């Protein structure tokens, strides 16, 4: 019996990384999962939660809990939103959030920990990649080696980057509340970046922040969402620029 997965595209995934979310679906199906897309899904509520608007965050969270009620697994192509469902919903909603929290996974985490897949293929031969650890994937969910290992075992060379675990400065509304500091944080990421084919990350927010700054600086750095890169790792993804952050 195949595993039933409910996909949560997330608001940024839905609007800005639609092709990468589609690649996540292709990848999960390729690995034998049966993918569902609960159509009532919206946003996890993090913008309200992180700015202290807890009543509003609770409304978004309750809606999400109801939308994904009964799913065996909920998979998100985002470490930040997965962290919100797993770590923050229980403090926000208490008991009603517990079943969802336990069944929620970020994409690379789901592939390695639940599906038990460590090798996707050899579709990344010859690629030089920098992996940006989104803070919530890294520190809330403890995802550190999983994505890097999936990339390396598919043939990529994941380059050492001294700032790979430092925050990019996005932080949701932080990026517009304290914009100068946010931009300086992105500059630290870009200034320390070694020569690579592209940067990838599990989080659309981080990619938007870093690519938005890189484009303003006219830096020729490319950014791609992890979901598209992992799909390419299988050797089936045909478009080597898929998932580009624009």
């Amino acid at each position, binding site marked *: 019996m195949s595993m039933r997965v409910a996909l949560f*595209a997330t*608001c940024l*995934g*839905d*609007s*800005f*990384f*639609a*092709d990468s*979310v*589609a690649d996540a*679906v*292709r990848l999960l199906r390729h690995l034998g999962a049966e993918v569902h*897309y609960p*159509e*009532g899904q*919206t*946003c996890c*509520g993090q913008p*309200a939660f*992180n*700015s*202290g*608007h*807890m*009543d*509003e965050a609770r*409304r*978004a969270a309750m*809606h*999400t809990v109801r939308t994904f009620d009964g799913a065996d697994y909920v998979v998100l192509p985002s470490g930040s939103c997965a962290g919100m469902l797993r770590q923050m919903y229980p403090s926000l909603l208490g008991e009603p959030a517990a079943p969802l929290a336990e069944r929620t996974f970020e994409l690379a985490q789901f592939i390695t920990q639940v599906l038990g897949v460590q090798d996707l293929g050899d579709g990344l031969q010859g690629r030089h990649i920098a992996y940006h650890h989104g*803070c919530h994937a890294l*520190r*809330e969910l403890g995802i550190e080696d999983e994505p890097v290992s999936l990339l390396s075992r598919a043939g990529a060379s994941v380059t050492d980057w001294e700032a790979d675990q*430092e*925050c990019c*400065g996005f*932080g*949701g509304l*932080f*990026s*517009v*509340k*304290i*914009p*100068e*500091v*946010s*931009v*300086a*944080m*992105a500059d*630290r990421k870009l200034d320390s970046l070694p020569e690579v084919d592209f940067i990838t990350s599990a989080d659309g927010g981080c990619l*938007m*922040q870093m690519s*938005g*700054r890189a484009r*303003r600086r006219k830096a020729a750095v490319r950014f791609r969402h992890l979901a598209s890169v992992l799909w390419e790792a299988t050797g089936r993804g045909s478009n080597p620029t898929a998932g580009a*952050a*624009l």
Partner: protein
Amino acid sequence: MSDPRPADYATAAAATLRDTPEVRTAITAATRTFDAHRRAAYAQVAAEEWRTWMEGVKNHLLTHLADYLEQAEEQLTRNGVHVHWAGTGDEALAALGDVVDAHGVGGVVKAKSMLTEELGVNAFLEQRGVRVRETDLGEYIIQLLGEPPSHIVGPAIHRSLEDCQALFHRELGTSPDATPDELAGAARDALRSDFLSADLGISGGNFLVAESGTVALIENEGNIRLSTSVPPVHVAFVGIEKLLPRFEDLSGFLQLTSRAATGQAIGTYVSLIQGPRRADESDGPTEVHVILVDNGRSSLLADDTAWEALRCVRCGACLNVCPVYRQTGGHAYGWAYSGPIGAILAPGLLGLENAMPLPHASSLCGACEDVCPVRIPFTDILLHWRHQAVERGLASTTEGLAMRAFAGLTERPRLYGAAARALRHLPIEVGGSALPVLRNWTAERELPKPSVRRFAQLWKDGIA
């Protein structure tokens, strides 16, 4: 009292980045070095177990604080120390003023103490015509420059070697290209006469052991030892949260605090002060005062979430890993404590209305939580203060309205879908100049382009 100005944080941070970009370079380099040392020092011991133990000791202390304060007072008094209770900063300064007046103090040497920065001790003394000399090398540098500290442990880390060479050349006549050793030697020579002539030595207190009445001080330069033993009178300012229950707790706290702060197994000098000079002793002060300072701490202790910030041992490890702090250093925060710990203490000690927007001076990356030796839950406390700001009407009205609209959308998938589709057709470049939120993004970054079709549409179309 000093005049805290956290309200200027956003402006001050922007100004620092624009006008003194070298501060970012200096702070980033220094904090990365500090943190590399901390990381190595944690790796040498069972740091995770020590952290949990320290958290437990401080939690026990804070939940029995009144009892331990009474015990500390009793022991200090038995040791011959004069104990003063200061509910407010003004009361703490008044207690100091009484000592100054009683002894006709003309000159003071000071050991590094963040609590005295919080209270504005130097300005208070100078207004009374008392000469104050900071004796920690970093503090000495910023005193000569007329600046507040930029970091809890390294007050002058925002300054380069070149800055110090120029400063000491001007103030002490050293050569313009003096080595760090020569600069330290010149400071040592200059400070020697201050130590010998001072009427009063002032220090803080890293820890105060309740069962023995011991004030413990950690340092690397010997200036704290001199400040607390050469002048005839010693005054120690100690925050009420700095107590430890038992003498044997000191060992672990001294060690992990040192490892967290500078990566040392223990500070080069540890002074354990247990009262004035005794009859059979040849040196040490003849009078010792401990001023126990509340100044907002007991009201912070009453806060169900933020009270955990009172476990802080002021090691500065959270500053060293903080990517926000690293861009500007401490001055932008507008008061004594900066970085993550400053952002969570300010609302508690200054009042939330005086601390905004410091709880927003964080991207919630959580790096601070990974290194804190007493496991302070920074993210929870930051979120708590942000929530309190909304509840107390301190957040912007526009943001409140936007969030209510946002919550409404998240509950109505069809409306949400319509809004997401509309995103593609908005003349966003025009909006960029009209809406502050977009303007703050576009000033130095490009806006992301929405996907040609939403994922919801791709799914409907059977593409995925």
